[in-house]
């Protein structure tokens, strides 16, 4: 009995770490773009899924998985910037229009993916093979790798925002766009870079996700909802809050799936968040709108 519960605990720890890492990537990108440009990007989950499908397609054509991995992340970035330039930049001022357009893009891509690839789940090939046994519980290397990549990416993000010149430029734009413009910051450039970074994070999250879980077009919605939930919990616009909240959500998810079953996962996670909101309506690290 004791052995069984230790095993369960270990499973929860590993699954929670992987889920937290992936959703932290998705959510921090979503939060970043909101914090800087003040747009709610409903197509964020779409970028997440699109990069996974792009990568899977490349490997199907015989491209080396490592090359495909990098190419897909770049594809995600380029897609995000193109979407921003073509569709979002002209309507940035209108809150409702941005929601409508990004939501329409999300549903459009979902439909096209559905018709092209079908509803069944597909996966990106494993970047590393092998299993390590910890106390008799098998843990695949790719799960460990996923967590490590996610942590490295999040640390790099933090470093990029707080330590580099470009990052500071972006933060200044987020703080006060007019003032940033007055001191000679090219704010439009800052927004484009932000969109690029945000999309890269989503793309990376999607690739890591599809390496472990079966990916379907509907995953875009799932990624979006988790990003929402995490960002609401962490506080809109706060990247650090998103990362903390991602771990809360990831572990709530892991515990729910292990104890109640997968079909309860979203329900319990979202109820938890709503319960927290009743106590603290602005999230853990809320910033001014």
């Amino acid at each position: 009995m004791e052995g069984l519960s230790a095993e369960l605990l270990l499973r929860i720890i590993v699954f929670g770490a992987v889920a937290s890492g992936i959703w932290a990537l998705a959510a921090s990108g979503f939060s970043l773009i909101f914090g800087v440009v003040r747009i709610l990007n409903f197509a964020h989950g779409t970028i997440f899924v699109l990069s996974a499908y792009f990568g899977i397609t490349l490997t199907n054509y015989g491209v080396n998985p490592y090359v495909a991995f990098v190419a897909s992340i770049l594809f995600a970035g380029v897609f995000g910037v193109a979407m921003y330039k073509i569709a979002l930049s002209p309507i940035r001022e209108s809150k409702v229009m941005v929601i409508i357009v990004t939501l329409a893009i999300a549903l459009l891509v979902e439909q096209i993916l559905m018709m092209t690839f079908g509803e069944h789940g597909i996966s990106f090939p494993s970047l590393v093979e092998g299993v390590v046994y910890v106390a008799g519980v098998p843990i695949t290397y790719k799960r460990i790798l996923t967590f490590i990549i996610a942590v490295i990416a999040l640390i790099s993000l933090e470093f990029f925002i707080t330590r580099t010149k470009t990052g500071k430029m972006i933060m200044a734009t987020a703080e006060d766009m007019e003032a940033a413009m007055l001191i000679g910051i090219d704010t439009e450039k800052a927004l484009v870079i932000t969109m690029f970074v945000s999309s890269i994070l989503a793309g990376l999250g999607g690739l890591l996700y599809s390496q472990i879980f079966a990916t379907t077009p509907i995953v875009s919605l799932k990624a979006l909802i988790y990003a929402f939930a995490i960002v609401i919990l962490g506080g809109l616009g706060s990247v650090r809050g998103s990362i903390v909240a991602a771990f809360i959500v990831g572990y709530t998810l892991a515990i729910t799936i292990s104890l109640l079953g997968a079909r309860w996962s979203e329900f319990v996670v979202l109820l938890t968040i709503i319960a927290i909101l009743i106590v603290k309506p602005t999230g853990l690290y809320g910033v001014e709108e």
Partner: protein
Amino acid sequence: MKGMKRVIALAITLAFAASLPLYIPEAFIYLLGLALLFAILVVSWDVMVGYTGYVNLGHTVFVGIGAYTAALLQSQRLALPTLPVPASIVMGGFVAALVGLFIGIVTLRLRGYYFALVTAILPLVFMQTVFIWPDIFGGEEGFTIEHGLAGSVVEKYYAALLIAFVSIAVMLLIVNSPVGLKLKAIREDEELAEAVGIDTVKYKIMAFVISSFFAGIGGAAIVHYRMVVAPDLYDIPLMLLVILSAVIGGLGTIYGPMIGGLLIYLAKNWWLKEVVDVFRFTALPINDDVILYLILIVVAILMPEGVYQGIKEKLKKERG
């Protein structure tokens, strides 16, 4: 004099709507009835969003709750008493309003973007219930009910016309009353509204509950119209269609969203199907949804202030 003109215009519109089954094929009348019920959803969304300025992305929660409440009252799944159809529709509205009251109390303390985000995840919470308890809610397929709004298609159409007319008329009276004026004050400047003594939270919640009530009525009526309840009534595409119709019609005008709702629904379910056939010879992944979303994106980029405003401004310019 103006009032008289309005009554005459209304009478003509109603007479026209009532006469449609005389010269329009039944398949189209069926769609028209659904479009009328869909218009209730759009107008009820407008009562909240167009008049208070709070973007509610969870409107389908209330559509779904109304729909499932009414459907469960018409089946033996929960051993609930079977109500007559009109009573189960009204019950759908009341349960939706009750849930709206609770959600409103929690979420309307939030401002702007938070409210939009929190309401955006709500439909998914409620949709999950359908999959968690398939024995009650019928899972992905939903379930059928026995008693519809009426027997024949034409009778159903008249029932839908009646429900839509009464619902929209009541909502119109509310927004044109002093309550509506206070809501507009909140939309224009919430702090100022508060400063002049309007209990903004109370009025926002009131608008939200009214909006939820009619969404529930609409959802329940749709279920009794098509005889099937399914999770699509909670789903995101329906939400987008509602937002789209309201924005195209012009937010905060009631009439605009009503007309937008009718046109968009018919365009999607009738006209677009024929457009898709044109593309059938190509191997491209195109269906009616793809075309709808493409049009939507292009229109939004070209006329970011909404089609209604866009056309109005164009006309103004042409007149000099």
